[in-house]
């Protein structure tokens, strides 16, 4: 049996990975699909619904739903000020996908930005996911799992 704090960190890592991967893949597929759908600015919902029929867009949207749900789950135990920087590793992945999959040019400035994000993410991920005062009672004993309503 591992300690509750270790389990909290492990659970946080796994769910963070799901949040980041679903975000990067979802946005990439959405972007690929929207480029073939063409420019979309319309007050009417019909062109949006038509765009959703594009398979790339549909795949992107499904992954973004996974992203929303896993993000909500992560926020049920982790601080927003923890989740924000840690999930920013997605920006690094988007740039890497741009460079190695889409063969976009990545400038020195961008590489510097990527390096800063990675150092920042490493620092934040070493703090406790929940540093607010409610930490102690909530993590030590597993309380209600489905909320009170």
């Amino acid at each position, binding site marked *: 049996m591992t300690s509750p704090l270790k389990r909290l960190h492990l659970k946080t890592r796994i769910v963070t990975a799901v949040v980041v991967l679903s975000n990067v893949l979802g*946005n*990439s597929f*959405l*972007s690929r699909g*929207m*480029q073939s*759908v*063409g*420019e*979309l*600015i319309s007050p009417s919902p019909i062109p*949006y619904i038509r*765009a959703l029929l594009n398979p790339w*867009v549909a795949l992107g949207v499904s992954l*973004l739903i996974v992203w*929303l749900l896993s993000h*909500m*789950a992560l*926020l*049920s*135990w982790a*601080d*927003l*000020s*923890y*989740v*924000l*920087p840690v999930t*920013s590793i997605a*920006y690094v992945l*988007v740039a890497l996908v*741009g460079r190695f999959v889409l063969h*976009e040019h990545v400038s020195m*400035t*961008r590489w*510097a*930005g*990527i390096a*800063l*994000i990675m*150092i*920042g*993410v*490493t*620092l*934040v991920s*070493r*703090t406790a996911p929940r*540093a*607010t005062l409610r930490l102690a009672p*909530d*993590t030590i004993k*597993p*309380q*209600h*799992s*489905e*909320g*009170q*309503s």
Partner: protein
Amino acid sequence: MKWTLVTIIVLATTAGEVLQAIGMRQHGEIHDFRPGALGRVASALAQSWHILAAIFAMAVSFFAFMALVSMAELSFAVPVTAASFVLETFFAKYLLKEHIGRTRWAGALLVAAGVALLAL
């Protein structure tokens, strides 16, 4: 048009994620990831107006993002909308009253600086 969409996305994302954080904090930590338990979580969350408002805001942000990527590159769209990062950290501190220690501040500032460099 591009910048109007960026503004809508940043404001809607900030509102959506801060509301998500409030709603999920009220719900409490999710321990059980089996489908039945997750179903009960979903029905509890469907009764939280914070969560419903959050989902509405995320939907607004999503459709604006969809319009943005139809006219701009992903490598512009993703970093530029990260401006919400700064706004959200502000709300995390002053509205959600999160305790942000020195290491986390340092990390958050590095990430913000890095995202700004990506957006250049």
